[in-house]
C-alpha cells in the first residue's frame, strides 16, 4: 500500500492546477452566465495534451494512467467543471470506447484527431424516453447491406454542437432487445443530422448540451464499433470508465468549494472573531474535509483498479455515487458558510452548487449507481 503519487502524476496535477488557476479562473463566471463554450481553453488544453490524456501515445494521446486523469480532472473542475465534463466525455467515453473496441482503421481515422484535440467527441446514448433505462432505445440503425440508416432523436448530448465526432447508440434489431443495439461512429456533418437548440441549463452552462435529430442518416458499415449487436455492452462498459471521470469532476467541484469556504471562514469575522473559530462553521468544515478525502480515495481506488486491468465497475459506481453526493452537500454548505456572499456570482460557490447537481444525474444517476452496487451485493460480486 502506497499513498504517494509518482513524479509524473504530480507534474500532471500541477500542470492542470496551473492552467485552471491561471487561465480558467479568468472568465469562468462570464462563460457560465452567458453559456459560452470554452473554445480557446479547449484549444490550449489540447496543446497541453488533456483532451486525449488517457489515449496511448501510439494514437497520439498523452499515454497517461487513470490516476493522473483523476488528479487532472479534480484540479480542472475545482475551477471550472464545464471544462471538466468536456474533457471527461472526450477522454473516457469517446476516446476510450474507440481505443478499447475499435479497429486499427477506426483508430487511425477517428481516434487520432480526438486524441490530439483537433476534434471533440460526443456520446449519444440518452433519448427523450430512454435515460436511466438505456435499453429502451427508439433511435434505429437499420441494416441496409453496406450501410446503416439511422433515424431518431438523442437528448442531453454533452458537446452536442461543438463535437464533430459522434458515437451513436441505436437499435438495429428490436426483436433481439439489448442484443440488437449497435454503436456507430458518425461524422456530425453527415447529411440528415440536425442539432437541436442549446439547452438552457441550471449549471455546467459553459458546456453545450443539445438534442440531435437523425433523419435517414447513412452510416457506413465500417463505422460500427465491435460486432453486430455489441452496442449496449459497449455503452455500459464505456460508462463504467466514464464514471471515474464524472466522479473526479464531482470531487473537484467539492474540493474547489471547500477551499473557498476555508479561505472565507478564515477571513470573515462575526461576533468579534473569524467565523472558523465558531464551532458551527468549524464542524461543517471538518465534515466537508473528511467527506472529500473519502470521495478522493474512492476515485483513486477505481482508477487504480482500471490501471491494473482489474474489474472496476463497482468501484467506479461507488466513486461516482459518493463523490456526486459529496459535491452536492459540500457546495450547499460552502454557500451557507459564505452567507449572503455565497448567493452572488462573484464568490463562485453558487455556480459550484448548481454544477454539482448535474453530477448526481448524468452518466448514471445516483439511484442507478445504487442499483449497480446493490446488484453486486446481491450476487456476491462486490
Amino acid at each position: 500500500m502506497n499513498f504517494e503519487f509518482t513524479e509524473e502524476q504530480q507534474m500532471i496535477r500541477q500542470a492542470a492546477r496551473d492552467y485552471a488557476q491561471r487561465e480558467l479562473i479568468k472568465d469562468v463566471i462570464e462563460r457560465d452566465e452567458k453559456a459560452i463554450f470554452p473554445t480557446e481553453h479547449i484549444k490550449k488544453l489540447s496543446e497541453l495534451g488533456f483532451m486525449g490524456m488517457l489515449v496511448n501515445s501510439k494514437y497520439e494521446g498523452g499515454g497517461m494512467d487513470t490516476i493522473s486523469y483523476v488528479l487532472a480532472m479534480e484540479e480542472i473542475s475545482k475551477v471550472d467543471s464545464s471544462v471538466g465534463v468536456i474533457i471527461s466525455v472526450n477522454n473516457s467515453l469517446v476516446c476510450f470506447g474507440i481505443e478499447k473496441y475499435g479497429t486499427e482503421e477506426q483508430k487511425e481515422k477517428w481516434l487520432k484527431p480526438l486524441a490530439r484535440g483537433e476534434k471533440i467527441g460526443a456520446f449519444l446514448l440518452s433519448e427523450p424516453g430512454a435515460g436511466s433505462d438505456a435499453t429502451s432505445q427508439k433511435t434505429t440503425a437499420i441494416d441496409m447491406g453496406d450501410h446503416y440508416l439511422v433515424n431518431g432523436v438523442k437528448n442531453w448530448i454533452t458537446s452536442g454542437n461543438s463535437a464533430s465526432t459522434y458515437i451513436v447508440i441505436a437499435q438495429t434489431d428490436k426483436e433481439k432487445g439489448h442484443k440488437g443495439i449497435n454503436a456507430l461512429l458518425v461524422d456530425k456533418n453527415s447529411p440528415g443530422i440536425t442539432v437541436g437548440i442549446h439547452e438552457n441549463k441550471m449549471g455546467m452552462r459553459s458546456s453545450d448540451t443539445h438534442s440531435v435529430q437523425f433523419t435517414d442518416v447513412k452510416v457506413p458499415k465500417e463505422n460500427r464499433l465491435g460486432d453486430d449487436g455489441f452496442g449496449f455492452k459497449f455503452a455500459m462498459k464505456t460508462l463504467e470508465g466514464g464514471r471515474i471521470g464524472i466522479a473526479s469532476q464531482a470531487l473537484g467541484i467539492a474540493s474547489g468549494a471547500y477551499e473557498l469556504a476555508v479561505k472565507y471562514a478564515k477571513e470573515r469575522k462575526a461576533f468579534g472573531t473569524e467565523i472558523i473559530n465558531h464551532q458551527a462553521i468549524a464542524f461543517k468544515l471538518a465534515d466537508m474535509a473528511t467527506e472529500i478525502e473519502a470521495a478522493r480515495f474512492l476515485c483513486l481506488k477505481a482508477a487504480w483498479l482500471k490501471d491494473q486491468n482489474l474489474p472496476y465497475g463497482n468501484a467506479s459506481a461507488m466513486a461516482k455515487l459518493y463523490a456526486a453526493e459529496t459535491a452536492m452537500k459540500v457546495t450547499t454548505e460552502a454557500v451557507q458558510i459564505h452567507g449572503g456572499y455565497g448567493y452572488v456570482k462573484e464568490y463562485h460557490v453558487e455556480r459550484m452548487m448548481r454544477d454539482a447537481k448535474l453530477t448526481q444525474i448524468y452518466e448514471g444517476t445516483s439511484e442507478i449507481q445504487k442499483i449497480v452496487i446493490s446488484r453486486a451485493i446481491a450476487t456476491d460480486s462486490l
Partner: protein
Amino acid sequence: MKLLVCISNVPDTTTKVKFTDNQTRFDSSGVQWIINPWDELALTRAVDLKEDGSNPINEVVVITVGLTNTEPTLRKCLAIGADKAIRIDTEPKDAYFVSQQIASYVKTNAFDFVIFGIESGDYNGSSVGAMVAEWLDIPSVSSVSGIRFNGNQALIERDTPTGKEQIEVNGTAVLVVQKGFAKEPKIPNMRGIMMARQKPLEVIPAVAAEALTNYVGFELPQPKAKVKMIDADNMAELVKLLSTEAKVL
C-alpha cells in the same frame, strides 16, 4: 548556439518558513520543492526561443548544484522542454561555492549564454550570476528583460527605472534575467512529462571549492500588526493613533 539555464531548487512560495538547530538552519521537513520562479521564466524563454525554430538555438541545458532531492525539479525542467539536465552532486553552501561549481562546468562545456533568474526564492542572494561571469572572465548583463536574435546576433534588452537599454554582446555572456523575459512560466505538456525520464540527467562530482559565508542565525519578521478600523466620523481618533501609535505624524 547553446544556452545553459541555471536552476535553484527552492521551497514552494506558499511554504510556512520554519528554522531548526537554534534558528541556524532552514527546516526543510515537509517542504514542497519547486523551480525557482525567476529561473523558470528564464527556462521558459530559452525553450520558447528554441522551439520557435527561427532562432539559432540548438540546445537548452539546465544545471543545478544540489543533492538527489533536486532531481524532481530538474525533471520538471526537462518536461518543460530542456534537452539535458546536469546536477552537480553537492550541498550548495553559499553563492561563492555554487558559482565555482557552475563556472567549472562551463569551462569544459562551451555555452553561448549562461542564464540566471535575478534572485532565488530562498536566500535571495542575487549574486551567483555575476560571480560566474567573473570566474569565467566573460561579460555579465543584469536585469535583462528581453532577448531576440537577428541571425546569430543576440540583441539584449534591459529595463531600467528610467527606460530601456539595448545591448549587443560579443561572445559568451552571463544574462541575469528579470520580469518581462518571459510572460509567465510554461506549463509542461503531456508529451514533455512523458519524455522527461528519457532525457539525460547527468550527475557530476563537485569540484573542490570553499564557501566564504556561513549562516549563523535566522529571524522571522514580526507578524503583521492587525488593521484598526476607525469610523469615518472620528477623525480626531485617527489623527491621535497616527501620531501616538503609528508615529507617522
